[in-house]
């Protein structure tokens, strides 16, 4: 069953099209990822889905409610975890959650229980009386996450929830998200970390410059689009060498950028032997060598010619 339907939405700021006619659906109980570099349009998409920003065009329906026409009906059913730590640093965890919870008309006794439950879930119950400003980055992220769950949403939107988090806290957040999803919560997850998208998401939409340029399960994207990519540092782009590389049997494509030859291969290990042989034959010095196994990063590079962190 489709919980969220996004149909040809766009958002324009002046002359800039932040989101340009994207469409996708999110199934009930699914973790749907939007993967792309900063500025790809992921946060703008989330802002439109949670009725914070009105689309310039297109339709969004969540649980069969038109988000643009009836935002006040949609808001109580969704939870949002913004990219910023949207908490009051001078208040403690309980005071933060109580205030945000009250805005959802949660009865006082239920809210008290919900706050305790969430603080235990995110591992902050023991620290609940400390001012948030004294929390570590990971603790703040976890509390930020808890604040988005106060109203028991049907649909949770997570906007890069692990930015600036240490590996231990990141793993705790992953486990928490997976546990929430196991309970049936539908999640939209944006990130520019391909590992996160591969690990968490059932399906991923790859975004760049306001467009979704590929959409499928991570494995399917890797299998169909992913290639082993070899980065070779060279001194100057030699057209002859590039042509010779392209002629190698395991090589699909070669591009030169900023002193690096980006070689897309069918099989990186096999291609590497041929490439080293070619460099030896032509006596061309290699200043660097890096092999990228097929993954969403290489999918993105193949689709856009850019890296996710660009």
């Amino acid at each position: 069953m489709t919980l969220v339907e996004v149909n040809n939405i766009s958002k324009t700021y002046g002359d800039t099209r932040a989101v340009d006619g994207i469409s996708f659906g999110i199934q009930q109980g699914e973790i749907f990822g939007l993967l792309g570099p900063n500025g790809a349009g992921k946060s703008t998409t989330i802002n439109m889905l949670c009725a914070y920003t009105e689309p310039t065009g297109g339709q969004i329906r969540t649980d069969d409610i038109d988000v643009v026409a009836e935002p006040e009906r949609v808001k109580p059913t969704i939870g949002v975890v913004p990219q910023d730590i949207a908490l009051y640093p001078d208040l403690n965890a309980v005071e933060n959650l109580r205030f945000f919870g009250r805005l959802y008309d949660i009865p006082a006794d239920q809210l008290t229980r919900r706050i305790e439950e969430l603080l235990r879930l995110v591992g902050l119950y023991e620290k609940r009386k400390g001012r948030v400003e004294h929390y570590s980055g990971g603790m703040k992220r976890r509390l930020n996450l808890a604040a988005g769950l106060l109203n028991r949403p049907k649909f949770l939107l997570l906007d890069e929830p692990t930015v600036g988090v240490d590996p231990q806290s990141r793993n705790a957040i992953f486990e928490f998200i997976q546990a929430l999803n196991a309970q049936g919560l539908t999640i939209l997850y944006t990130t520019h970390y391909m590992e996160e998208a591969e690990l968490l998401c059932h399906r991923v939409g790859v975004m760049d410059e306001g467009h979704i340029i590929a959409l499928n399960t991570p494995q399917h994207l890797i299998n169909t689009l992913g290639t082993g990519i070899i980065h070779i540092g060279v001194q100057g782009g030699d057209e002859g060498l590039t042509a010779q590389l392209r002629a190698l049997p395991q090589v699909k494509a070669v591009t030169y950028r900023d002193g690096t030859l980006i070689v897309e291969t069918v099989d990186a290990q096999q291609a590497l032997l041929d490439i080293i042989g070619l460099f030896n034959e032509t006596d061309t010095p290699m200043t660097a060598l890096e092999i990228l196994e097929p993954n969403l990063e290489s999918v993105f590079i193949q689709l856009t010619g850019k890296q996710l962190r660009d």
Partner: protein
Amino acid sequence: MKKLLYVASNELLLLFKDKMAAVWMIILPLALTTIMGLAFGGLGGGSEPVVIDLPVVDQDGGEMAAAVLDILAQTQGTYLHLETEYDEGTARQLVYDGKRAGALIIPAGFTADVTSGNPTALDLLVAPGGQTAPLLEGMVRGVTSGFSSVQTTVEVTISEVQRATGSYDLDYDGIAARVVATAQERLENPPVSTRVTTVGNAEEEEEFNIFDQVVPGYAVMFAMFGVLGGAGAILEEKERGTFKRLLIAPVPKYVLMGGKLLAQFIVGVAQIVLMFAFGALVFHVSLGGSILGLVLVTLATCWATTALGMLLVAVIKSRKQVHPITTLIVLGTSAIGGSWFPLFLMPKWVQQAARVTLVAWAMEGYNQLMLFGGGLNDVWPDIGVLLLYGAVCFVVGLRLFRFKEA
């Protein structure tokens, strides 16, 4: 409505949690009010000349009356702007209404009495409790005292010349002794004196208390600092991201903004009430004859201040701009609006320019109630202007405020 109160109570909780807020909003205002009140216990603590409008009704029209006007006009340190266009009734009414700190009546026959040595007096009408009244009284007494000396000298000299022309044998020791004796006698019973009459509410005309001016002045100034600073907190919330979280929650925009403004309004009222309570308990500040008037002026002032805060938040782009801009506005409007010195002591053009500030209207209301013994009816115009001021700022501010960043 419930959510509006939640938003307001959260704002107050945030303020309560901010330790520096207590310093800025309570300790500093009380300390500064105390220091300024004690430092400026007398009028005009600075070296700049003070300008006072003084209606003078010359019923004499003679040479000595003209001399009085000349002397008053050349008074050092304080510049008297003499207004000679009023009749006695109008001058009396101006003082009664608190529009002038005092008025001088030079009675008919003044010149004749001075030159003939008959006792006479200048009539000085002063407003009750007005802080310029003692100054005016001192200045006029200085003039009349001078006239007494002149009269003495004239009297002694004439008698000596008369005696000398008879004998051509001047008794210098005798003249000196007679001048001293006459001067002493005149000092005790001056032939030219000042009759001071208080015009207005006689019950309020007890000894002037500088804190009657300083307390409301600094209360308004610091309430503005508090409220406008609180308005800056909205920009801080926008930059931090909590404002976005509030907009994502099922809370109408007007409820969200209403809650925040309600909190700022409460903060402003609390600050002024605290300052007045402190002033009344510690410095025996007179709260005037109309507590209702005082309450309404306070509420109208805080409404106007809160709405001005809304307007500022709408036009200021970032939190970094808040402090310099609000400081400039608060200090600038306090200086010309009568928070530091009574408005009626300012030059005419300043008094007129000050009308664009809410401080001027607030201080006129407070001065009317606390200095001039006015009642509720006397401050309705001030309350009305403050309410209108707030309404205009609120509507314009709400129209310009960007709830969401582009």
